[in-house]
């Protein structure tokens, strides 16, 4: 267990949380750490909204003929689950919370390059979320989060435009955050911090920001064109009036594929930090892990057609997209091998963050390998639009990204709040989540191979056993997510006070008190010659 000593009672030291009080000091803050907390609150709310939709769906799917809701409602549930989880939870999650909090600290800066722009990002996010929540409350939308045309532009009478507008607006929040991170990392590193001395979390935030900045504008245009077609009945995507429905798919996936790397790269960065700290070793193959993030970001822009192998796309286009999709798997494999090698001859401890990191590696490996089934043309024909795809991306998004997110929240919680949470309960929750997750999603691989299509409100009876298993798992998973909510909140008030470095980790953020002062560092941070100097003897002041 950590050896936290309450050096100075938190109350008598000024730090970013108590430097000023009142709602205005939060709503008009330009402190990146407070903005991170504003995001934390908002995305947690969106997570529970998206999660509620999932709970209803899994309950409904217990019966082949549908146990709970009408097909229209079911269609709205899976659409809102997708829209809320993808655009309002996963895409901002690590970048806007942990990224905002840690990027300046890890490079030894006082704040991001453009703090006011950062606050604007949050307001833009809230505005977009408001439009989407309005759509949800007024009856929802039932096109699927992918908004394929002409269904979405001409055949449904639900709130497509409000939802699309919400997503459109929130996209600008991502763009501004990405811009902020890129400029900060390029221009504001502390003296001595070369690129190769940066923690791996920063490499992954940088790669993520490249995708934010280059990919998001395309979905903005796509949704805008969709809105134009829907409002003015111009034939952009509707073939009945001369449009091309497959063009929509190309434009949509040009962003939405890189978007999935936006969702996983930050998690990989977190895992790099957790594995190194909890095995007390520098990362094996640092430069390979760093460059693999960039490689993933770059290749990710050229694989979008693997969502469209059976869309009437040409066979030759299929070949190219398939080959490139295999290529993008290699950098991820590099990371997994390097993380595993980092554990070799380490000194491994099992606090909750480490459990999440290890869970990530296992589940991401399985999720990533099932991606090969989908990159492979012949098998994708059978598996496309079945539950296999759902299982694949949930292994990566939930088994991967969400677990990394939780691991990161737990790891940096003492730094953010100045308090320690109860690690015993945290480990219990991590195990419950791991178990519940696998019970929920592993059966879905089998359902998919058997042929159960996605987005089905009713299904043939022979698929019931696997569906019931999945729903049982979902209830366990749901409980697993509630447990941290409880003990983390409890710790804010009643948890033991944390010192600057309860985990004995390396990194500039650990060289400042917990919670940090508003300007992050009381004295200018000293940049070590190498990152992750775990093998070096302890310095007196740490």
């Amino acid at each position, binding site marked *: 267990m950590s050896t936290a000593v309450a050096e100075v009672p938190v109350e008598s030291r000024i730090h970013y949380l108590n430097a000023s009080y009142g709602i205005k000091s939060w709503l008009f803050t330009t402190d990146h750490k407070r903005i991170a907390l504003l995001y934390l609150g908002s995305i947690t709310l969106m997570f529970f909204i998206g999660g509620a939709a999932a709970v209803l769906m899994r309950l409904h799917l217990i019966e082949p003929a549908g146990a709970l809701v009408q097909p229209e409602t079911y269609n709205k549930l899976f659409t809102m689950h997708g829209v809320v989880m993808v655009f309002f939870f996963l895409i901002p999650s690590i970048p806007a919370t942990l990224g905002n909090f840690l990027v300046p600290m890890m490079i030894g800066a006082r704040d991001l390059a453009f703090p006011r722009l950062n606050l604007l990002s949050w307001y833009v996010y809230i505005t977009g979320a408001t439009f989407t929540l309005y759509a949800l409350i007024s009856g929802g939308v039932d096109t699927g989060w992918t908004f394929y045309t002409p269904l979405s532009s001409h055949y449904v009478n639900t709130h497509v435009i409000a939802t699309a507008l919400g997503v459109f607006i929130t996209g600008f929040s991502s763009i501004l955050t990405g*811009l902020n991170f890129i400029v900060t990392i390029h*221009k504001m590193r502390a003296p001595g911090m070369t690129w190769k001395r940066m923690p791996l979390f920063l490499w992954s935030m940088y790669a993520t920001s490249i995708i934010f900045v280059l990919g998001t504008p395309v979905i903005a*245009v796509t949704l805008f*064109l969709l809105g134009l077609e829907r409002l003015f009945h111009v034939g952009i995507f509707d073939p009945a*009036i001369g449009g091309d429905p497959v063009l929509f798919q190309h434009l949509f996936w040009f962003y939405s594929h890189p978007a999935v790397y936006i969702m996983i790269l930050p998690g990989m960065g977190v895992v790099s930090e957790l594995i190194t700290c909890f095995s007390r070793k520098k990362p094996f193959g640092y430069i390979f892990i760093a460059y693999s993030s960039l490689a993933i970001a770059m290749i990710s822009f050229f694989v979008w057609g693997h969502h469209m192998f059976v869309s009437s796309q040409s066979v030759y286009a299929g070949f190219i997209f398939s080959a490139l999709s295999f290529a993008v798997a290699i950098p991820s494999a590099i990371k997994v091998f390097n993380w595993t090698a980092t554990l070799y001859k380490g000194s491994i401890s099992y606090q909750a963050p480490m459990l999440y990191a290890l869970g990530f590696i296992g589940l991401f490996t399985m999720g990533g390998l099932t991606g090969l089934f989908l990159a492979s043309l012949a098998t994708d024909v059978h598996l496309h639009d079945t539950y296999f795809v759902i299982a694949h991306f949930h292994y990566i998004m939930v088994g991967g990204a969400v677990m990394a997110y939780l691991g990161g929240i737990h790891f940096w919680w003492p730094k953010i709040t100045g308090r320690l949470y109860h690690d015993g309960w945290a480990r219990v929750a991590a195990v419950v989540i791991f178990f519940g997750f696998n019970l929920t999603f592993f059966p879905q691989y089998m359902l998919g191979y058997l042929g159960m299509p996605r987005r089905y409100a009713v299904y043939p009876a022979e698929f019931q056993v696997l569906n019931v298993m999945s729903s049982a798992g979902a209830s366990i998973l749901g409980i697993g997510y509630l447990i941290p909510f409880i003990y983390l909140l409890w710790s804010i008030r009643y948890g033991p006070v944390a010192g600057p470095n309860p985990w004995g980790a390396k990194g500039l953020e650990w060289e400042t008190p917990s919670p940090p002062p508003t300007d992050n560092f009381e004295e200018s941070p000293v940049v070590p010659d190498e990152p992750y100097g775990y093998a070096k003897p302890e310095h007196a002041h740490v």
Partner: protein
Amino acid sequence: MSESAVNSGRLEATATHGVTPALHHQFEDIEQQREAGNFGMWIFLATEMLFFGAIFTAYIMYRVMYYPGFEAGSRGLEASFGATMTFVLLASSFTMAMSVHAAHAGKRRMLLGFLFATMLLGIIFLGLKFTEYTHKWHEQLVPGLNFHPAAESLRGAPEHAVELFMCFYFFMTGLHALHMIIGIGLLGVMAILAWQGKISPENYNRVEAAGLYWHFVDIIWIYLFPLLYLVGGRY
């Protein structure tokens, strides 16, 4: 001391005059602030390239698919207006570049003059665009709201293709006009800062960044003009 500094139109960062640029607290020095500002603008322009790029891609796809309709729609646009607007914008890029030069040289009056000239040219551009839009409304060529083209306007091409062209026309030029309005606003802010004496040779990168933005919006127009107004050539 300060009076003569103002009268000569030159700005000097003297200890008494106090034109020390405001160093934001997150930066170590003014150099870092300047570099971050410029780099940030370049990144922003990269996002804009992808933004317009996606629209251009859709446009090009449909132009290939529906060439007769696009040609008909394009001939319905007034190329003379388009050419005038192009010259106006090119001139405004010149005045913008002169503003940046003036800021760099510390010549306040010149800076203000060229900023106003650029803004004026931008407003002329917008005025011409507004006039063009009004003409299109009268010709009933506004998709979705008022689209009843006369048979001659179609030139034998299918109506939906001409409507699609007009849709792209309004979307692309409208988006461009929105960027122009923002740009004019940005220049207005620069003018206010210049008037307040906050622009100096040591601290002129905001004008430089505004200049980058202005030139980018101009370049977008340079692509839009032939793509929209000159389909099928003009003889």
